[in-house]
């Protein structure tokens, strides 16, 4: 396994901590006038998605993590597995529903996602930042009310529920920001 020194810590670099793959978010160099220098590193555990702060002695080395982001197209669901296809090799890969987490609320068949692999196994799925989904259920809206600023819940084709303006009707296609699950506009 390859080693990586604290001098090479940059945002996005993947390292192995307690056998779990982590991604570096921030790396701050700390040094007292006379004494040991440290790197205070903000890290995201890619399995649990938790962010933690770790301290390293400057110059220390750690194992790098074999983590790859691969563009894959979502094909179809089969029981608890969602089947993706690598768009460059056309190889198919089943991804457990639990790994999809919130991503399953936003993607439909044919959508292209980023599947993150650790030692070749999927650990997370990132949907496109913006998706377009149809409203399947919502209270009748007030036509023409485009400015009052009130909101109501609407259920989308994928089962996700988002807050939408009052004028939205069943059958409308909405643009959604998947990073925070918010309504952007009518598509």
């Amino acid at each position, binding site marked *: 396994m390859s080693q990586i020194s604290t*001098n090479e810590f940059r945002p996005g670099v993947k390292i192995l901590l307690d056998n779990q793959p982590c991604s570096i978010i921030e790396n*701050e*160099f*700390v*040094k*007292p*006038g*006379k*004494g*040991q*220098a*440290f790197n*205070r590193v903000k890290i995201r555990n890619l399995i649990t998605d938790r962010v*933690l*702060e*770790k*301290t390293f*002695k400057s*110059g220390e080395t750690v194992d790098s993590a074999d983590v790859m982001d691969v563009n894959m197209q979502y094909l179809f669901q089969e029981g608890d597995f969602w089947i993706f296809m690598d768009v460059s090799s056309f190889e198919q890969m089943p991804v457990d529903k639990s790994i999809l987490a919130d991503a399953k609320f936003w993607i439909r068949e044919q959508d292209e996602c980023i599947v993150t692999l650790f030692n070749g196994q999927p650990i997370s799925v990132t949907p496109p930042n913006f998706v377009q989904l149809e409203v399947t259920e919502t209270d009748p809206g007030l036509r023409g009310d485009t400015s009052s600023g009130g909101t109501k819940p609407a259920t989308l084709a994928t089962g996700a529920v988002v807050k939408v303006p009052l004028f939205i009707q069943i059958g409308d296609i909405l643009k959604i920001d998947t990073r925070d699950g918010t309504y952007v506009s009518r598509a």
Partner: protein
Amino acid sequence: MSILSLNDIIRRSELKHILREHLRSEGLIEIDVPCLAKNACPDIAVSPIPVHVDQQTCFLQPSPEILLKRVLAQHPIDCYTMGPVFREDPAGPIHNPEFLMLEFYLIGRRYADLKEKTLAICKLLLGDRSIEIYSYQDIWAHITGVPYSPDFDYFARLLKNQRVDYREDWDCRTLEDLAFSMICQPHLGINVFTIIDGFPPAQAGLARIDRGIACRFELFIDGLELANGYDELIAPEQNKYRFEAWNLERQQQGLINWSLDMHFIDALRYLPECSGVAIGLERLLMLALKKQSLEQSMIFSWNTL
């Protein structure tokens, strides 16, 4: 990323001019020493940058100290040097591999004078502030409320309380450095000039040790370490001993180990009693320009190169 604005370039130039005028009026003469030399101080706390010149390993100087002391051994005179120094530290908001340092020396037993003059320089560039002075030992109690007791558990508890991650297999000294940087330092020099005066012998650097206390001070402004001054260690044998101890530590850490600078050790026989201080001029200019990071105050920051 672009080059510093012309306004700020002019202000830097003016501030340096003011400084030089001031130092001159104080009777200090400016002495230039090389940035590139065949040797460097092996101080474990700084990492000189090795370069290859004429088929040998030389060093971009991490401090003008060694070469200035050689000048002083021959010509005992109050003097300063203002120029770039180099350290193999990663660039960041308050670190840059190359930065300006102002280092000055006063001949004779004038350690108290050294502190006064250092503060006067900071006042000149930053305006007046009140001054607080603590010993290294007292600052811990002042900041944390728990009296200083330099053992592993003391530092481990402080770090835990502040949720600063550390490793159980690190030694006490490492924890102490981490706790000082993360817990004490951010509170030092907030709206005041904070001087920490008198350090444990293990942190003596090249300062004289008097009755178990290293005659060394550090000045902090806005949570930044700005200056580091010594009542200089003269005794050649003791200097040699500290160099050898650092080299041993370097060896243990797998760092470059270098031969003793015999020119320096020889010169020490003639070095007069003196005190000297290194001021992080680059940081001082950053504060004087009211900037948040060196990237905003250096003409070329690391990222523009």
